[in-house]
């Protein structure tokens, strides 16, 4: 069996289909190798190697965007390469590139090993890319666990900080629980789809196509075990997305985790969840009688919880975490709509890209403003930022404006597409909730902007300001942050290929 698979793979050279993932893995190993080989003085250059390597892979991926393997299955149907998968691959690669950049700003402020961080980021990105293309529950679970285990390490990476360790422990417990739920769901589906007593049972109950054909047969979609399995799998994914009622871990973990990891969790992990959700939604389409109402309620509760809980936060990492919960809600709104309106898929992708650009702009500013204690990032620390560092303040405003969905920024276009899709799908009630969410969110985003622009440092703030070193923005960071801010503005005005991608569907 194994040799068959290898021979088959070699014959059609399917390895070429996953060259970005393979190169990421090689790059990750190269970093570790370099650390052993290079003298201590030159080790500072290792993150740059990671940065350049990822940029090279990104270029390679973009050139080969329309590969021959598009719309085919490889590795014995473990992977399925689709347009959506390609888009998400680009997304994850960009995200890991930016996380590397954030790491270069944030890590030197701490006494921690450096290279392993970049290594793990690369491995996680490769796993996320595979996750977005998985076509089999084994593939899905292995990739997902690679991501999750990587995050266990990353979240508690600042091992001298009790906050980071606490966050790591919480994430470990919650992550294990979610993996357990997911696995239980997969096992139920496996059992019921492979049950010879049922009509339409399949020999490949773990494969997505086999499972889909089983669910589509007769009344199988209403079978109790199948429905329970679908719900449990959804619950497992909801943990990753941070959707209600599985969002409890988010504020603590986001606060404790190192800022670059928080960004990676907020953007990468969330997007990975949505990529999987889209794939599974197609597989589970016969169960939409169950999924649509469940996700609808979930989306409404997520939007409301995220926004209202964020209102009272003073720690910016917690605030961003909870606002991220509300963004997950808006994205879920798009997911629900995508069941009937194909355009919603593109809308969600656009939203994810807008969210990526804006979030990393904001996290980039946070990485600069943060002092030695990474978990202690209060709104007060931003008082008077516009005077002390106008560049960071401008980037912050653009990022937050886009997150708040204010035109003419990219975030507004994302919300608009999702609202149009939701309207087309007829989810009026959910749309009303979303509007309430947007208006509420304006309050806390502007609270932050207010702190940066309208407030002068108070007496206690002065002490903080005095105790923290002058913020200096390096050249690479300056270029990247400028690019992020400009992309956020430009995407609001001119959507170009991304707009076509949304509209095509």
């Amino acid at each position, binding site marked *: 069996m194994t040799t068959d698979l290898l021979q088959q793979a070699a014959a059609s050279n399917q390895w070429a289909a996953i060259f970005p993932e393979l190169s990421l893995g090689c790059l990750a190993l190269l970093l570790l190798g370099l650390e052993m080989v290079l003298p201590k003085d030159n080790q500072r250059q290792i993150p740059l190697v990671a940065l350049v390597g990822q940029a090279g892979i990104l270029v390679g991926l973009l050139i080969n965007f329309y590969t021959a393997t598009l719309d085919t299955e490889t590795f014995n149907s473990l992977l399925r390469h689709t347009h959506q998968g390609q888009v998400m691959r680009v997304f994850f690669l960009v995200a890991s590139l930016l996380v590397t950049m954030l790491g270069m700003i944030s890590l030197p402020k701490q006494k921690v090993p450096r290279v392993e961080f970049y290594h793990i980021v690369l491995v996680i990105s490769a796993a996320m890319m595979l996750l977005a293309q998985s076509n089999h529950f084994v593939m899905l679970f292995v990739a997902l666990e690679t991501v999750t285990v990587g995050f266990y390490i990353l979240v508690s990476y600042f091992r001298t900080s009790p906050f980071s360790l606490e966050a790591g422990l919480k994430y470990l417990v919650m992550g294990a629980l979610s993996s357990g739920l997911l696995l239980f769901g997969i096992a139920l589906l496996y059992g019921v789809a492979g049950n010879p007593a049922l009509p339409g049972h399949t020999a490949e109950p773990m494969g997505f196509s086999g499972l889909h054909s089983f669910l589509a047969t007769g009344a199988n979609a209403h079978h109790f075990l199948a429905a329970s399995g679908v719900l449990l799998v959804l619950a497992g994914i909801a943990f990753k997305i941070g959707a209600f009622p599985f969002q409890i871990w988010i504020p603590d973990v986001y606060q404790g985790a190192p800022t670059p990891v928080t960004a990676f969790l907020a953007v990468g992990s969330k997007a990975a969840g949505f990529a999987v959700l889209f794939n599974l939604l197609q597989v589970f389409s016969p169960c939409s009688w169950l999924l649509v109402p469940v996700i609808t309620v979930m989306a409404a509760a997520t939007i409301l919880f995220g926004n209202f809980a964020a209102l009272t936060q003073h720690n910016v990492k917690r605030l961003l975490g909870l606002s991220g919960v509300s963004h997950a809600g808006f994205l879920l709104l798009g997911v629900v709509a995508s069941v009937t309106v194909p355009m919603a898929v593109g809308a969600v992708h656009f939203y994810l890209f807008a969210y990526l650009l804006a979030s990393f702009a904001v996290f980039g500013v946070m990485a600069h403003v943060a002092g030695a204690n990474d978990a202690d990032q209060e709104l007060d620390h931003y008082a008077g930022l516009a005077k002390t560092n106008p560049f960071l303040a401008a980037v912050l405003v653009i990022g937050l404006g886009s997150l708040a969905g204010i035109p003419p920024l990219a975030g507004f276009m994302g919300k608009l597409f999702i609202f149009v899709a939701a309207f087309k799908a007829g989810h009026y009630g959910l749309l009303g909730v979303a509007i309430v969410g947007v208006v509420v969110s304006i*309050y806390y985003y502007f609270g932050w902007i207010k702190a940066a622009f309208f407030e002068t440092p108070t007496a206690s703030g002065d002490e903080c300001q005095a105790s923290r070193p002058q913020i200096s923005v390096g050249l690479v960071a300056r270029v990247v942050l400028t690019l992020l801010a400009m992309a956020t503005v430009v995407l609001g005005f001119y959507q170009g290929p991304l707009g076509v991608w949304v509209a095509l569907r």
Partner: protein
Amino acid sequence: MIHSLYDPLLLSIAVPLAVAVAIAFGLPKRWSVRLAYVGFAAPALLALCVWTRYAGGPQDHGYAFLTHYNTGLSGLGITLTLGLNGISLPLFVLASLVGLAAGLYAIQSGAERLKIYLMLLLVMQAGLMGVFASVDIFFFYFFHELALIPTFIMVGVWGGRDRTYAAMKLTIYLTLGAMLSLVGLIALYVKSGATSFDLITLRDYLAAHPLGETVQKNIFGLLMFGFGILVSLWPLHTWAPLGYGAAPSSAAMLHAGVLKKFGLYGLIQIALPLLPAGVGHWSHPLALLAVVGNVLVIGLITMAQRDLKQMIGYSSVMHMGYAFLGVACFSALGAGGVVLLMVAHGLSVALLFLLATSIHHRTHTFDMDEIGGLAQKTPVLAAFFVAATLASIGLPGFANFWGELTIFIALWHFSPLYATLAVIGVVISAIYGLRAVARVFFGPSTEALSQVTVANPPADLRWSEKIPALILLAALLFIGFWPKSLSTPLNATLAAAYPAPAQAAAK
């Protein structure tokens, strides 16, 4: 699909925006100010040029200067379509003139961090030109928000008393209004089944396939309250006086003068012609809110104000009540009156805010009880203020008169009761307007004022303040004496979009 190099509408949006971008990328201050003159003057010159060329020019689907530009969203039916019809032309001209006056006033104001202030004003100016030049309803909304965001920042950073609270309140109220109207516009797009956000296509499509009555009613309700919040419809008006009271003068001029008209413009250009059955359901509630709330209640509140800027803010809320009454009439006459009133009110309220700030520079207070007898020291300022007040009351000879008169006539056809109540409002506005003039400029000089002015006696208006004021006053008088320059194109467009007067009267 005409693409010529010279597109006055696109240029009037692009020039201020380009100047703003140039300033954002670190132009030195001297050049920033020089370029800012270009950025404010170009739209005004282009708009005047467009105004003169409008009559007799070629028209396409009722729009002159129609052009399309693809921004990558054509698959969704969104293209940047620019054009002017009889409804948008007056407002386009208004936006350019008030923008020029506000810009000139801002340049001479010497505000702190002037470069960024001018940059935000230029972005606002570009957005305003875009709002009225857009035929595509998506870009219509988009440009509105582009103009709205700088307002929040300007109020928060350069504002006066309570600026943080005012900025926050303004942001939340206006976002709510904008979101409601956005949902209304999306609903209109999706429910119509047309595949374009383009107003021309949408109108033709809806003429062939009218929407059901319930749908029309719901969408009109959304648009009415959404746009209503933006125009300060009672009881959702509380952001306006507070915001204008705190806003720096140029931002208040542009917002109260032009940007606020976005909601009314949306109702007249989009909601009324496309949702005729929806208007029927809402016209009486709307008229009642407007006449009781905006005109009478707010009118009485305005009379009780001591703060000059707050008073002007309240008076602008009150005048919007007349505009809503004109909308509620749902006739070509009423809508035409609203457009004229919007232009007139935009010019006069901008002039009042400008003069109020000039008064503040000389007296260091907005409290009318602490000012008195200013006319002896600053006769020119007094003359301007009296003229602006009379215009705002609606004296014949000023543009406001034609707007209010037309609305009252249309309102009489609609309901004589409302018309009677609305006319009482004119008396109220005469009382507070003239009382403000009397308190500030005439009577004995107060002790508080003489303490302030003993060190530096108040000088009369400087030329740098006079020029923007003159621009606004000249426009008010020009339209007041020759309303036909606006009403001829307006009539042509309204006649096509609205039911004939006979029909409206029969309703």
